[in-house]
């Protein structure tokens, strides 16, 4: 068995985000960035230097930040509202609901350092509820890209998409997964590995772990399909139902609580249309202990080896 990504270069997807944003902003004067003092952590210093008048820093005031984004959109701007995801989504959730979702404004919400990227800083700085919170709202697609290439593609999609969206980015380094030049399609999963015995569905920083888990399973004679499902809403029902029919078991992995995120969204489709055995990996409804981002994923059963073990156990439940 060849271990994937063994010597792969890891990339911080924030760099891909700001490189794409700066390029888009150079071509379209209506693109603006809004932030809550998070110029550095959102990697917006380059944007600020190139377009100082279009970097709107409201200070540490997330409710105002999202409202300002909605007002800028009303005035014809295309605002990318950037902040650490726990504060963007948790603090300003009602603004996201009323000013972005219900008002259907063209606001691009960019949650930086999502999931457990802040590791040892603890649960106040973890954003493992954001899929559930934002996914409950109409008109705001929820997207978690898996690598720098998909991040670039998602930012380009967001800039031309008419309407709001929530883009969930990390700061944890990830290897390249998708081909250069990849074009993002909303609500369309990508097959990273073909397989017939089980399907592993993941996104964000879990996708490359899922691919590695598939390699582990291959070494045990198990053929695992891996779907990179960046869009959590609208969910790719076709890919989920094909996986259910063709592989008969589905394992989801996410850097999120198991209450209401990717696994829940997949389970909703499965329960409604084609029940098959499922296992949902994630943070099991607890506030995380002290550990680094990568260690926490391992501790919550999402090392490639543990994902593979869960898949083996799941396959035994197939009828």
């Amino acid at each position, binding site marked *: 068995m060849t271990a994937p990504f063994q010597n792969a270069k890891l990339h911080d997807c924030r760099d891909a985000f700001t490189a794409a944003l700066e390029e888009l902003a150079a071509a379209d004067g209506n693109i603006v960035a809004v932030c809550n003092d998070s110029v550095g952590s959102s990697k917006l210093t380059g944007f600020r230097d190139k377009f100082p008048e279009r970097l709107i820093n409201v200070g540490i005031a997330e409710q105002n930040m999202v409202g*300002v984004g909605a007002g800028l959109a*009303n005035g014809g*701007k295309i605002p990318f509202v950037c902040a650490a995801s726990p504060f963007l989504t948790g603090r300003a959730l009602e603004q996201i609901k*009323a000013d972005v979702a*219900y*008002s259907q404004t063209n606001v691009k919400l960019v949650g930086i350092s999502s999931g457990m990227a802040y590791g040892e800083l603890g649960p106040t700085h973890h954003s493992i509820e954001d899929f559930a919170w934002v996914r409950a709202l109409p008109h705001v697609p929820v997207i978690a890209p898996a690598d720098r290439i998909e991040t670039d593609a998602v930012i380009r999609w967001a800039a031309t998409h008419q309407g709001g969206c929530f883009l969930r980015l990390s700061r944890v380094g990830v290897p390249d997964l998708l081909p250069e030049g990849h074009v993002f399609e909303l609500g369309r999963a990508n097959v990273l590995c073909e397989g017939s015995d089980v399907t592993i569905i993941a996104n964000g920083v879990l996708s490359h772990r899922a691919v590695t888990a598939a390699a582990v399973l291959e070494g045990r004679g198990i053929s695992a399909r891996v779907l990179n499902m960046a869009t959590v809403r609208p969910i790719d029902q076709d890919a989920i139902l094909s996986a259910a029919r063709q592989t008969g078991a589905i394992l989801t992995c996410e850097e999120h609580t198991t209450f209401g995120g990717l696994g829940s969204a997949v389970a909703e489709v499965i329960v409604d249309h084609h029940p098959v055995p499922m296992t949902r990996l994630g943070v099991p409804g607890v506030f995380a202990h002290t550990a680094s981002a990568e260690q926490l994923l391992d501790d919550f059963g999402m090392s490639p080896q543990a994902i593979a073990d869960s898949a083996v156990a799941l396959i035994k439940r197939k009828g």
Partner: protein
Amino acid sequence: MDTHDLRLLANRIRRRDLQAVYEAGAGHIGGEMSVTDLLTALYFHTMKVDPAAPMDPNRDRLILSKGHTALALYVVLSEKGFLPKEEIATFLQHNSRLNGHPNRVKVPGVETNTGPLGHGLPVGVGMAKAAKLDGADWRTFVITGDGEMQEGSNWEAIMAAAHFGLDNLTLIIDHNRLQQGARLEDTNNLAPLPPKLAAFGWTVLEIDGHDMDQITAALSADNIASGKPTCIVAHTNKGHGISFMSDNVAWHHKVPNEAQYKQAMQELENAQ
């Protein structure tokens, strides 16, 4: 429109509002009566808006942040031509687009969906900032309640508006001294409001919010101090124009019975 005609129009809007609350059996009549003169002056004297082009990029913007008084806005918009006047009769009816809080997606002339308090001013800051970025001269107006100023998000926006130098932004506080359950002073007394806004770097004007001469003068662009946002503290009465509702906390969202309705309508007609 001159101030005499504005007064007559505001009286007609109050009567239509009262009738709609009575017929719907719900509404926020107290706050609607307090904000009607402000809305009337904005739409029929100050603001550049065209019902034939509700999305004109250069239109002035009004956000009714105290969204629970949506009915007053609906009646004003219908008088202005954004909505058919007869549609007011559908207020709160099954499938009406005129629900209890305004929806920009469904109702032309509404700029953002309000209802939860403390949302309008941040959005207004974004609008005013957009105009500044474009070097455009359209203005943004936001009306909040005075109780609504207890929401912290307003003060986030107040800081930002001053820091950004948004002199194209005007906040009008409908200062009727009452909130839903009690008087402002008995709940969380923010008054006096003017020194607080001034301390944040705003130009502050105080007016009688039921005096059309004072309202139209305060809304004039002549009052704008370059680089500073403007706050108009409009002293108003909840339930204004109806004797038994005026300054009476019981009439936040109470609905008049038949006798009360007839008396209220008679008082408004007599005031024409």
